[in-house]
């Protein structure tokens, strides 16, 4: 069973002239780490809003096609019903954190689901340990750094034991080091818990090494879908996604007549160029 499966999914916001997303067909398997990218306004956020039921529950418009998430038909489900299947982390953790202590914040979702107290306490500790913020449990969210806040937001979501995690540009407010830490925490969670991760990102420099699949959207449609090395070709460059700089360099050198493969990371580029320079 696929974790996420969409068939001819389209959506047009009420009052909009054009659909924001058209004929989306994807199948994401359990445990995949998928990066979803594309220029602003390409429909990435719209797709995410369909996955967690914000569309059509909170945004009105014309939704057609089929969408299954964690085996559930999303149409007709409330966001609350979906929340134990699919967790959502937003760009700015400040929009997601509001309690007086980190621990209470992490537990907020569980409280609302009516999870018994003992179990909730256990799950909160587990979630905070998994994201590396256990020692911050008594702090106020506003006392945390951006990276710590984002970890707290992730902890609050995984405490609800979803099988799928969707994150909408979770690193954009973070410095490069904190961003890398967040993405590696995600990769570890994905691996340890067999979570399916859909990460919406522009910062391909940082996320590519962790992704086993990259989906590129443009103008409401899926244009490319595959392993990073295959996706980061000429077409991706023309769509205008920010390829990792070492990948860009390899494009330039290939155009100059030096055949080198498509590196995704600095290490790969170093090895490939060493070979070439030998």
């Amino acid at each position: 069973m696929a974790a996420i499966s969409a068939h001819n999914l389209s959506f047009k916001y009420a009052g909009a002239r054009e659909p924001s997303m058209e004929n989306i067909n994807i199948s994401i398997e359990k445990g995949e780490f998928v990066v979803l990218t594309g220029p602003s306004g390409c429909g990435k956020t719209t797709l995410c809003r369909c996955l967690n039921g914000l569309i059509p529950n909170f945004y009105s418009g014309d939704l057609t096609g089929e969408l299954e998430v964690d085996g559930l038909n999303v149409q007709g489900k409330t966001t609350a019903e979906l929340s134990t299947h699919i967790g959502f982390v937003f760009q700015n953790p400040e929009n997601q954190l509001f309690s007086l202590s980190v621990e209470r914040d992490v537990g907020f979702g569980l409280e609302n689901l009516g999870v018994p107290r003992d179990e909730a306490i256990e799950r909160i500790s587990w979630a905070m340990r998994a994201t590396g913020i256990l020692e911050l449990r008594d702090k106020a969210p506003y006392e945390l750094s951006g990276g710590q806040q984002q970890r707290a937001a992730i902890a609050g979501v995984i405490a609800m034991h979803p099988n799928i995690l969707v994150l909408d540009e979770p690193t954009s407010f973070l410095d490069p080091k904190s961003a890398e830490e967040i993405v590696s925490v995600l990769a570890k969670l994905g691996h340890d818990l067999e979570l399916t991760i859909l990460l919406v990102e522009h910062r391909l420099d940082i996320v590519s090494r962790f992704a086993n699949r990259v989906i590129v959207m443009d103008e409401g449609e899926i244009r490319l879908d595959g392993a990073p090395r295959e996706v980061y070709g000429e077409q991706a460059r023309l769509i205008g996604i920010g390829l990792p700089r070492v990948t860009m360099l390899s494009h330039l050198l290939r155009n100059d007549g030096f055949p080198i493969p498509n590196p995704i990371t600095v290490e790969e580029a170093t090895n490939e160029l060493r070979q070439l320079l030998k």
Partner: protein
Amino acid sequence: MISVHNVSFQYPDGAEVLHDVNLEINDGEFIAIMGENGAGKTTLVKMFNGLLKPTNGSVAVDGVGTDKRSVAQLSRNVGLIFQNPDNQLFAETVEQELGFSLKNFGFSDDVIKKRVSSFLHILDLERYANSSPFVLSGGERKRVALAAILVWDPKHVIMDEPTIGQDYLQKDRLRNFITQLVSQGKTVIIVTHDVEFVAECKPRVILLSHGKIIGDGPATRILTDEKLVKDASLTMPQIASLMNQLTEAGAQHEIIDVYSAEGYLLKKLRAKPVSPLES
């Protein structure tokens, strides 16, 4: 010119965010203030338009201390675009948002109309003129916030994290736009931790860490200095760390962007003797 002299800043709860900062920023310079989350970058730039006043030391803009002017007076010359556009936007339409400050500064309706339409065009916002800023995407709202400040033509422009939420093409446009502002003689100061953006723009970089300036110089020098970058909890631009690994230890390459790396490598590759097997 913005002069920062022995500035320290302490929040009322006692946390010291800036410690003995000294800095001279000349008119027409392009500067990136970089450092980890919480390094004091935003606190520092809030001193430039008087939103914050130093606990110790002084800040002067164009020769006048910020303690001698109101924020409104300072803002006429120092435009600060916040990191989060939602802290700044409030009007019903994008057009009204852009016209608001001009009205307050007492410009004539005719001038307001012209300026607003020209900035809608420059920042690619024409089609949203009559939309509410709040239905726009995060990246678009950021452009509205930028336009709403630039429209009154401040001499010094400060942008707090302008690349957040912007895709690659928008960043490219932003880069060209900054170049344009600088060529008009404006001072442009960006606060950012986007090392790849800085590697492409190559401004003067001021590195802050724990409230202190730990580096100040051209991007090519600062961002290739492994120790400085580490101390500021940043990462090196990909190209800089690639070049570090490729060139022999200690070689001063100062290459941080894709095109310079291409040039350097082409020279090396073309100089390479053809191996006997291939000839």
